[in-house]
């Protein structure tokens, strides 16, 4: 859907997908965050509807204040495409409530994914942490320098969720790196 054509009353959930909004000029997501469409999405979030931001969508959610924290350029200062594992650490969000797996394999593809937030709050809000396939979290598996290896967070209520990895790219066995569809498991959470 084109961003100017959103009619918030018609939908119970909104997904802000990845991509580069407005060329990601200035800071990733910053220009999109100042559009009227985001005002409508804020309203939807306040009504308790599900708002999911993936990659650039996550950046837009932090830039617009719907989620805490900020996403800075990767420590390596360049775009990184890579398949990673993430550990799911909160099960009180719309997306992770009924998730059958605790470690998911999905790709990341971003230049600005280094999540920063004061540590105590970050620990409370985090939903996904970069890990190995066993779910062990350590600096070795941190692709971008995020605080606490954070790959995604949610608000306190758990209806606004943002993450850097791309679940939609791990939803089809043909295009998934090893045939897994972990991303689809996650996206099924949108049917609440």
């Amino acid at each position, binding site marked *: 859907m084109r961003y100017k054509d959103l009619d918030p009353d018609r939908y119970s959930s909104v997904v802000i997908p990845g991509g580069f909004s407005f060329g990601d000029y*200035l800071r990733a997501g910053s220009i999109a965050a100042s559009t009227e469409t985001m005002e409508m999405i804020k309203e939807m979030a306040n009504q308790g509807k599900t708002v999911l931001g993936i990659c650039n969508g996550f950046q837009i959610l932090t830039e617009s204040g719907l989620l805490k924290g900020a996403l800075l350029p990767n420590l390596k200062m360049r775009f990184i495409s890579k398949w990673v594992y993430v550990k799911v650490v909160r099960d009180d969000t719309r997306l992770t409530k009924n998730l059958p797996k605790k470690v998911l394999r999905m790709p990341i593809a971003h230049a600005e994914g280094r999540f920063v937030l004061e540590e105590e709050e970050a620990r409370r809000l985090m939903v996904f942490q970069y890990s190995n396939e066993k779910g062990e979290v350590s600096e070795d598996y941190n692709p971008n320098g995020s605080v606490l290896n954070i790959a995604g967070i949610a608000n306190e209520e758990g209806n606004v969720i943002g993450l850097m990895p791309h679940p939609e790219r791990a939803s089809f066995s043909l295009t998934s790196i090893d045939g897994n569809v972990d991303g689809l498991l996650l996206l099924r959470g949108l049917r609440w």
Partner: protein
Amino acid sequence: MYSVEVIVLNKEGIRDPEGEAIKKYMVDKVTDKVKEVRAGKYVLFKIDAGSEEEAMNIAKKVADEKRLYNPIVHKVEIRVRKDEDGGH
């Protein structure tokens, strides 16, 4: 100690899509007084040098030799100030 600020901008006449986008989608929604916006890169050096001139020359040498900017596309502005407390 000197603070040397190196500011890299596209030369006059060379487009700056980032500045244009900031103007069109952000600035223009607030005011019509801003006539141009240009975005660039800002690099701050803290240089241990004997004089302003020396500090400036060191920054210049780094900028030129390590291609902090591309002379064909960019103009570079270098500003020096002496740090109040960290000096000799």
